[in-house]
């Protein structure tokens, strides 16, 4: 028995060494060709609570990398190499994952899905003087006071305002809010929504929170039901959302569910519908991107073909835009130096698949509209577009 075990262990070891060789060779070849490489860090959560969304964002970045695999710095063609680091959706892992990218010598970093981890890693990038472009981290804290953090999506305050405005427009006067403890994204959105909903003349009848990795929301939802709320704003991850929706249905809760950009995710809707048909019907979520538009058809079709999927998620589009913004900045800077790229980022201006991209002095993108989607028959469909001027 022991001998077999020893044999098995040595096989594993040998395999490990061989695998190591494989990697070594490939990077060696890259170097021997005289090809120059610029490293772009991908700071994303590919596992953990937000693993589902993070992976889709990484796919968008990978697709952009396929479309534009090289960048011209000065007169030389550099190959763009993606270095992916998983922050495991965990605030305490975030700094480790960020330091890994710094040590790998990345010139610029993209990500992450989820504001909490982005906030946690912000200081690492700032100290290392490497610019970072957030794709879908919508909490104001991400870029505030950090000259090295940029982002291509709108802010939670805007998103919450749009949803609060829409709820009032629909004639709802009583709203309930459900947020996740310890999740900056969820708490931030919840607070903004409460403020704006009250400002627009509504009343918050129930405000509750649930711990991370919770799996039973019945008691919370029962409280919502007895509070008489007409709509429920539940900023939550796509792991939590389907369970909330299903349990709300089995409790017979009839209030309209409203969610933030995380909910614009076909997998989330499918998962929820798979467990309890009809539980997503009528939900409202705000998002950045309408994949049915004509001007984004090339991107949508190209991505669908490359990744053999039939849906293009909003975070995928944002990942794509973030990568393109990074490439533009690197070209404009004409250097692989972090500071030069950061300075160049402030001058970047182009039309991405999620709309015009240009950064203000805070590092936020100047977007003035949000798309609202609703679920109908188990699919997310375009509902409305709300612009800044509407909600003022």
């Amino acid at each position, binding site marked *: 028995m022991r001998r077999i075990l020893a044999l098995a262990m040595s096989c594993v070891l040998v395999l490990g060494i061989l695998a190591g060789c494989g990697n070594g060779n490939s990077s060696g070849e890259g170097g021997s060709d005289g090809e120059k490489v610029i490293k772009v860090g991908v700071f994303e959560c590919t596992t953990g609570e937000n693993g589902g969304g993070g992976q889709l964002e990484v796919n968008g970045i990978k697709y952009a990398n396929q479309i534009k695999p090289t960048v011209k710095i000065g007169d030389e063609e550099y190959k763009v190499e993606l270095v992916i680091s998983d922050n495991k959706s965990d605030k305490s892992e975030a700094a480790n994952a960020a330091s890994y990218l710094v040590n790998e010598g990345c010139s610029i970093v993209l990500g992450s899905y989820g504001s909490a981890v982005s906030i946690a890693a912000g200081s690492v990038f700032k100290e290392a003087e490497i610019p970072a472009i957030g794709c879908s981290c919508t909490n104001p804290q991400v870029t505030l006071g950090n000259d090295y953090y940029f982002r291509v999506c709108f802010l939670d305050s805007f998103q919450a305002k749009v949803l609060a405005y829409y709820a009032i427009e629909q004639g709802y006067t009583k709203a309930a809010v459900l947020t996740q403890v310890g999740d900056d994204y969820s708490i931030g959105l919840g607070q903004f929504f409460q403020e704006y909903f009250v400002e627009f003349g509504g009343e918050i009848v129930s405000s*509750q929170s649930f*711990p991370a990795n919770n799996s*039973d929301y019945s008691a919370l939802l029962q409280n919502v039901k*007895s509070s008489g709320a007409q709509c429920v704003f539940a900023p939550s991850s796509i*792991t939590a959302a*389907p369970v909330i929706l299903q349990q709300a249905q089995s409790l017979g809760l009839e209030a309209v569910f409203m969610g933030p950009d995380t909910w614009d995710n076909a997998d989330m809707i499918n998962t929820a519908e798979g467990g309890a048909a009809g539980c997503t019907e009528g939900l409202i979520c705000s998002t950045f991107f309408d994949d049915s538009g004509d001007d984004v058809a090339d991107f949508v079709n190209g991505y669908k073909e490359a990744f053999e999927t039939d849906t293009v998620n909003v975070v995928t589009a944002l990942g794509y835009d973030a990568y393109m913004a990074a490439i533009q900045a690197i070209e404009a800077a004409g250097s692989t130096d972090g500071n030069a790229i950061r300075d160049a980022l402030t001058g970047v201006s182009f039309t991405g698949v999620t709309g015009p991209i240009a950064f203000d002095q805070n590092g936020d993108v100047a977007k003035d509209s949000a798309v609202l989607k609703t679920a109908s028959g188990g699919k997310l469909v375009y509902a409305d577009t709300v612009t800044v001027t509407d909600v003022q």
Partner: protein
Amino acid sequence: MDLTTFFQSCVTSVSIGSAYALIAIGYTMVYGILRLINFAHGDIFMMAGYFTIFAMSNFMLPWYVAIPLVLAMTALLGVVIERIAYKPLRSAPRMSIMISAIGVSFFLENFATYLFTGLPKSFPGIGFLQIPMEWGSVKLQSVSIITPIVTIVLVVALMTLVNKTKIGMAMRAAAKDFETAQLMGIKINRVISFTFAVGSVLAAVGAILYFSPRPMVYPYSGMMPGLKCFVAAVLGGIGSIPGACIGGFIIGAVETFLVAMFPTLSGYSDAFTFVLLILMLLVRPTGLLGEKMTDKV
């Protein structure tokens, strides 16, 4: 709190409490015999969730084929874990085997992440568990009624097994005194394997009943229920099967009613479970039904 909320909370707490009870029994049985807190138990529960998904969603087996298959697979997993990670350490200090259990727990979580990715998978709907029911203004699914019934039936069956059968007697003997039991001709390895198999089957039943109304399985989904059921087992008196059962129901009720009565404290419902553990350990370290432990000299 109005009457509807009260009754709805009762239904919720009994349904979740009985699922906890099933998992807690696994902790308590293994502890009774090996004096080992099997930290991997929560992850065995998670794996049972994945087995069900594969059996029903990927291989499209009907539930009456899938459920026995899942139970068998989970029992096998429990036994294999015991053989690989715990048996070689039988004569090692108790701490080593506990650390091995923590290692198995991490292994299963990461192995599941590797195999099934970190993305949550949706748990398949099992028809007879999802019949919507209405009782006055209280709405529930059949699973909320089936879960406590299944739990009570299984606990009674398990008690009969332990108290009335030959293998049960062997288990009790092993729990009382490991070495003497061995000297009396009890095949101790077989008894231990059997214990792990039974514990894992209960975890699998618990998984099916737990995930059915909370249909989201991901590699870490066994962590929190696992910890809570460990608390339940300690609360009821670790080593005692009825104790684990009562502990499970208490945790379920405390968790639900805390949220129902104090909505503002809802975010702390998990924390409260662990406060309960600390209080219990301070006031009555042996738990509600636990025996006073007399150390053998």
